[in-house]
């Protein structure tokens, strides 16, 4: 089906359904075939049938969400995903999917919530820290920027300083924060973090992308001054 060989897929499913009549797995494949053909109504009906017999069939639930997404029905997809997560709270991929859909809908607070759940469940995965920081940065405002900086920092820690986005993130946050706090009494001097991040970036660019080193150096310099 992935190769658009719907005819071959149909034949395979035919053979399987003869061999395993009434099988849920084959039922799912049949429904998937409808999806591949773009026959959304039939696919939905097929999954509904599967779910009637097996209300906890995770794959069927997820396919329903996928259909909504494929049709561009984002609010329906969000609705289904939320219901799914009520049943299957530990499904990290589902939380990530929900976060991404929220981000695409510019619902950043809701996306942040999803990443918070993920960080709580798996605190040592840097991807979640990074994604959370990016959403907070996008939300903006002093508090969010300060928190974003913390999560960029934790990403740096979890990745041994190798994550370029996190290093840049610290610099971006610092620059944005200093813009917002211009003229106010600066809090504890955390400039060590951003100068270390800047140093790490320059070192890395010098080594692996020397043609861009001057450009990065210029930008970092401007950020420190702002």
């Amino acid at each position, binding site marked *: 089906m992935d190769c658009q060989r719907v005819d071959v897929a149909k034949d395979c499913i035919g053979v399987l359904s003869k061999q395993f009549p009434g099988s849920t797995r084959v039922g799912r494949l049949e429904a998937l075939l409808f999806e591949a053909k773009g026959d959304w109504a039939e696919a939905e009906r097929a999954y509904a049938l599967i779910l009637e017999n097996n209300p906890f069939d995770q794959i069927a639930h997820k396919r329903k969400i996928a259909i909504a997404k494929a049709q561009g029905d984002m609010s329906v997809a969000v609705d289904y995903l939320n219901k799914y997560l009520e049943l299957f709270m530990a499904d990290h991929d589902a939380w990530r999917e929900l976060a991404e859909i929220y981000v695409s809908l510019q619902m950043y607070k809701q996306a942040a919530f999803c990443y918070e759940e993920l960080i709580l469940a798996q605190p040592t995965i840097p991807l979640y820290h990074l994604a959370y920081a990016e959403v907070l940065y996008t939300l903006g405002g002093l508090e969010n920027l300060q928190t974003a900086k913390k999560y960029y920092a934790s990403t740096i820690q979890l990745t041994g300083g190798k994550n370029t986005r996190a290093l840049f993130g610290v610099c971006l946050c610092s620059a944005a924060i200093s813009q917002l706090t211009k003229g106010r009494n600066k809090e504890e001097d955390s400039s060590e973090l951003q100068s270390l991040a800047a140093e790490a970036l320059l070192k890395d660019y010098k080594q*692996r992308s020397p043609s861009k080193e001057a450009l990065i150096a210029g930008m970092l310099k401007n950020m420190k001054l702002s």
Partner: protein
Amino acid sequence: MGVECRYEVAQAAYVKLALHALKHPTAAVNGLLVGRLLDSASPAVVSVVDAVPLSHQPHHLPLLPTLELALTLVEDHFAPQGFAVVGYYHANARRDDTDLPAVAKRVGDHIFRYFPRAAVLLLDNQKLEKVIKGDSRDPVVQLYSRDSSKSWRQAGSDGSSQLTLKEPSTNVVLADHVTTKKWQQIIDFDDHLDDISKDWLNPSLLG
């Protein structure tokens, strides 16, 4: 008041944005347009000379950090050559989605503050299919420009903005690049941030 303005898109810019979309067929992609206003021309012409691909990852594309970083670096890089960021391009993930998404409007608004004739180009996936098959001479992008009510309007609906391809054989060249699978080599900012040895300028891509 539709400010009459023509947008002339050079082959390099056009091909890069199309290749970017082709490299990531199941995701939305976006990027910046680089160029300048040709003041000698009347009515005004914005010459789009290059495109810098930005994102294809859904957890980075609509968010600010990649965009802000890229805007700064792209501006800094091109300013000495007399070019600036003059627009934004976007390609939707779904084949039949022809709506200009909110993120495109937001970025467009931001660029508009610095370049009042900013253009937003939305890739038409179905037109792109036709061009690849060699069936079409039409541009695969739809031009949007900002009207006086601060909303992004499709060009052509009131005749006030116009998009032209600078080189008439652009679509043929694009189809050619597709057959040689050139889209595999294009680098965007997401790729660069994952591996900084990859160059978002794509200097040797189009030869």
